């Protein structure tokens, strides 16, 4: 059976060049970079080279890059670390209702520590309003965390407009760029952010490694304690093969962002246009300000998990914001925050395209999905009523 992977928002396939770069560090270059001897020194060099690559890719300085175990840890370190470091300055944090749980749940935990958090609402496209942001700012605001690109609906947030406000007001700004790296240009100077999270496995690098950019001079408390690694901000023996992989992956992913984006946009638009023909289908997220590879659609009268599993039976991998796929009973908090009714949220499907997708992949999905939707709708009592109504 043909296999089509369109769940690059969940994770991506490691680029073979990335794996090649990592392998020596599982074999002969196995030292601990903290060791003084040759086994340690050769590995320390690779660690610093990866840091330079990560820095270069986002226009930062190497000493501003802290490697972590992934996007979640980077987000936690940013929000917990800055909030606690600036506790004496104020106790207010601003974030958005559509953040990933790695930011949203940390913010909720911060509330329990005594911080006040504003969860900014979004419009029907999932976008935060800079004006609403400005209004939310108080004397107590110390930190804001607004994502660069949404993982579910792909909406790009107006970070530059928001950073104009945070800079004016002296607020530290963190952005979760986990979904953005390699898909849109990311330049910490231009964005005007003070912290930025990224995760290698979202741009054809390995799982279990990420990084936090921390602008020079920004205070960040530790979340975990231990050895002197990563300037003591993030202790623990470094995941050298992973970090080397991150370095190589970010180098490759940012080598030609416009080229990759054009490829993805072409495929995505073909996919969206084809799927809209099914009828009773709605595109979720912003029509233009969205990740080039993200196509999130709602199929009326059918449930997302059923769609997913039916696609899976045809070899197609996608994801859904339906409650039944989230493991909870609630559908996606992102879709609900956009004002979508529960039923529509249940029928949402996300295709996230990656660099290995081809036009044939899109054609295949366009071939199999209409039948699936029809079959499920034919079983659905809601559909019947829908048609009658």
């Amino acid at each position: 059976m043909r296999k089509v992977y369109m769940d690059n928002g969940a994770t991506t396939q490691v680029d073979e060049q990335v794996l090649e770069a990592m392998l020596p560090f599982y074999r002969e270059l196995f030292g601990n970079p903290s060791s003084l001897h040759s086994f340690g020194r050769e590995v320390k060099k690779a660690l610093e080279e990866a840091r330079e690559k990560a820095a270069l890719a986002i226009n930062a300085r190497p000493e501003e890059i802290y490697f972590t175990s992934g996007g979640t840890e980077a987000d936690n370190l940013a929000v917990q670390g800055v909030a606690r470091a600036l506790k004496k300055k104020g106790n207010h944090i601003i974030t958005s209702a559509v953040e990933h749980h790695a930011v949203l749940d940390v913010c909720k935990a911060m509330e329990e520590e005594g911080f006040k958090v504003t969860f900014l609402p979004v419009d029907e496209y999932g976008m935060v309003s800079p004006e609403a942001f400005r209004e939310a700012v108080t004397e107590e605001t110390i930190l804001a965390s607004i994502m660069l690109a949404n993982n579910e609906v792909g909406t790009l947030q107006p970070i530059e407009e928001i950073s104009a406000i945070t800079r004016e007001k002296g607020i530290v700004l963190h952005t979760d760029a986990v979904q953005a790296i390699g898909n849109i240009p990311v330049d910490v100077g231009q964005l005007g952010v003070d912290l930025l999270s990224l995760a290698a496995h979202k741009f054809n690098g390995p799982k279990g490694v990420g990084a936090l950019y921390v602008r020079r001079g920004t205070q960040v408390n530790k979340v975990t304690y231990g050895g002197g690694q990563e300037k003591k901000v993030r202790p623990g023996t470094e995941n050298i093969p992973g970090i080397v992989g991150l370095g190589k992956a970010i180098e490759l992913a940012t080598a030609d962002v416009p080229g990759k984006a054009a490829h993805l946009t072409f495929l995505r638009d073909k996919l969206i246009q084809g799927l809209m023909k099914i009828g009773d289908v709605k595109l979720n997220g912003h029509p233009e300000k969205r990740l080039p590879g993200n196509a999130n659609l709602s199929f009326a009268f059918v449930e997302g998990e059923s769609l997913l599993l039916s696609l899976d039976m045809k070899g197609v991998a996608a994801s859904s914001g339906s409650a039944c796929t989230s493991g909870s009973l609630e559908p996606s908090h992102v879709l609900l925050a956009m004002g979508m009714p529960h039923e529509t949220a249940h029928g949402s499907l996300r295709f996230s395209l990656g660099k290995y997708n081809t036009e044939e992949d899109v054609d295949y999905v366009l071939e199999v999905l209409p039948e699936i939707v029809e079959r499920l709708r034919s079983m659905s009592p809601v559909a019947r009523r829908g048609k009658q109504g």
Partner: protein
Amino acid sequence: MYSEKVMDHFKNPRNVGEVKDYHGKGEMGSTRCGDTMVLTIKVGEGEVIEDVKFQTFGCAAAIASSSMMTEMVLGKTIQEALAMTNNHVAEALGGLPAPKMHCSNLAADALHKAIEDYLKRKEAAAS
């Protein structure tokens, strides 16, 4: 995640649709996860369920539970059918993942509603 039996019933659901000239109809909606099911039955001699069909909006667990339930209930008397619980359905499917148990609740509940509806209609016809 799902047992083979669940996947079999999801892939090839039995008794989908609406019974022509049904004797009873039950409708259930889960307010929690949005699933909806409509069940129609035909009851023959000796109060035996002669025909049963379902329509379900829901996840694989909901669809498979609906389908399994229709198989289990076909040929049973309405007394036997009333004794059937959601757990029986889940068990017959070889179990369901814990967070999915609630998805099987629709099936037996809709069945009981359909039988209630049949009994009401019968009473109304008799009176």
